């Protein structure tokens, strides 16, 4: 076992101060400041103005705030802004960027299949799907519903969402619908 270091522990980021945080948001470097306790969801929305990510429960259940952190779908409300420092964050605003400014095939399918009503949960679902379908491009409906169970939607009964995804993954457009995998997941 290594002995206890004789040097004092490194200084933490102080609770009272705002600290610089830099992320790569949808491919662009963006900087802001955050107290250590600031949630990534609040940092994105209110510090950087990226309000496409929504906040529905702030305890990790509803999934509305799901973003990709270094490619991996994660709850922004269960992540501190300071934890995201130096990371790549992808949000719903960037989906079309990766598709030449047009909505992706998945977004288009959501529209065709009425997979959204109030739209509040939609951003999180799209971000989960963009990670998930990179890993599992042709899920069965059961697998898809299992993944979707990490999101609450109160409007659609999920039927249109399932239809939209199955439509896209069953067709040839699926491969163009999503950004290439850059996730560091195993």
């Amino acid at each position, binding site marked *: 076992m290594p002995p206890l270091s004789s040097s004092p522990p490194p200084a933490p980021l102080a609770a009272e101060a705002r600290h610089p945080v830099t992320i790569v948001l949808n491919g662009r470097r963006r900087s802001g400041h955050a107290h*250590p*306790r600031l949630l990534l969801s609040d940092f994105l929305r209110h510090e950087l103005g990226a309000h496409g990510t929504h906040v529905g429960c702030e305890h990790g259940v509803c999934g509305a705030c799901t973003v990709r952190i270094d490619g991996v779908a994660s709850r922004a409300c*269960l992540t501190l802004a300071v934890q995201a420092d130096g990371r790549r964050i992808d949000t719903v605003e960037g989906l079309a960027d990766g598709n030449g400014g047009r909505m992706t095939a998945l977004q288009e399918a959501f529209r065709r299949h009425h997979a959204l009503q109030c739209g509040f949960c939609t951003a999180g679902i799209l971000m989960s799907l963009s990670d998930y379908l990179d890993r599992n491009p042709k899920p069965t409906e059961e697998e898809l519903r299992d993944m979707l169970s990490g999101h609450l939607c109160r409007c659609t009964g999920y039927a249109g969402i399932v239809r939209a995804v199955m439509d896209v993954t069953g067709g040839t457009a699926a491969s163009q619908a999503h950004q290439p995998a850059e996730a560091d997941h*195993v």
Partner: protein
Amino acid sequence: MKPAPFDYLRPATLTEALAALAAGGDEARVIAGGQSLMPMLNMRLVQPRLLIDLGRLEELRTLTAEDGWLTVGAAVTQGQVLARPTLAQEVPLLAAALPWVGHFQTRNRGTLCGSVAHADPSAETPLCLVATGGEVVLRNAWRRRSVPAADFFLGPLTTVKAADEIVECVRFPLAKPGSGHAFREVSMRHGDFAIVACAATVDGGQATLAVGGVADRPSRRSWPLVDGGLPADLDEALNAFAWDLGGDDDQHATARYRRDLVRRIGRTVLEEALSCRR
């Protein structure tokens, strides 16, 4: 619903982390995936002075199957373990149980060690650790110690881990050839906390049933096989186990229902484990 203020430390090394934890004492909490801790911080149920982030420590990314153990470091996520192609051979119970842990999105960040340290009585990972006879490796700035899972959990959110220790890794014994394993869970919705979770192992003439969600910690009991089969008085034995576990009423289920499930699902998983021996 915002966390109370805290200092935040992202140490460069484990040594730094442990030194900070030693200095911070009971006022410091470590965070890795944060899928249990962050909700409690947001709700202000937990208000540490210092948060020490283990999430980027390479030293804690161990995920190996060696010397009869699957070792999972503190920074390894549930998703990473679940994606391990050999998991079903190595620790079949874990392979069966991990899909029940939260959801895809939370498994992407949540860690096994974090779940063990959190010690929710209904959580699947502590149950698997107890069921398989695994161990928890604790480490502070001075020493490392290994605690059998059965001794680690003391009650709801309560373990033997001292304030200056982290769960450095958890270790699951690799399944022995000829052993059988089965896992079932009853919950209100997919991904919810278990009302009852049952994990069974049949190995070397012994059948073991571990139960989560009923008592205030995962608990297990073993019976010798009789002529290669389950004991004839298994129903009585399960009834005794169920009553010993007790269980509580909450808004979703009664204690009696929980005991019923121990008797019924307990038998089912034991039979499954017996019949799927390889």
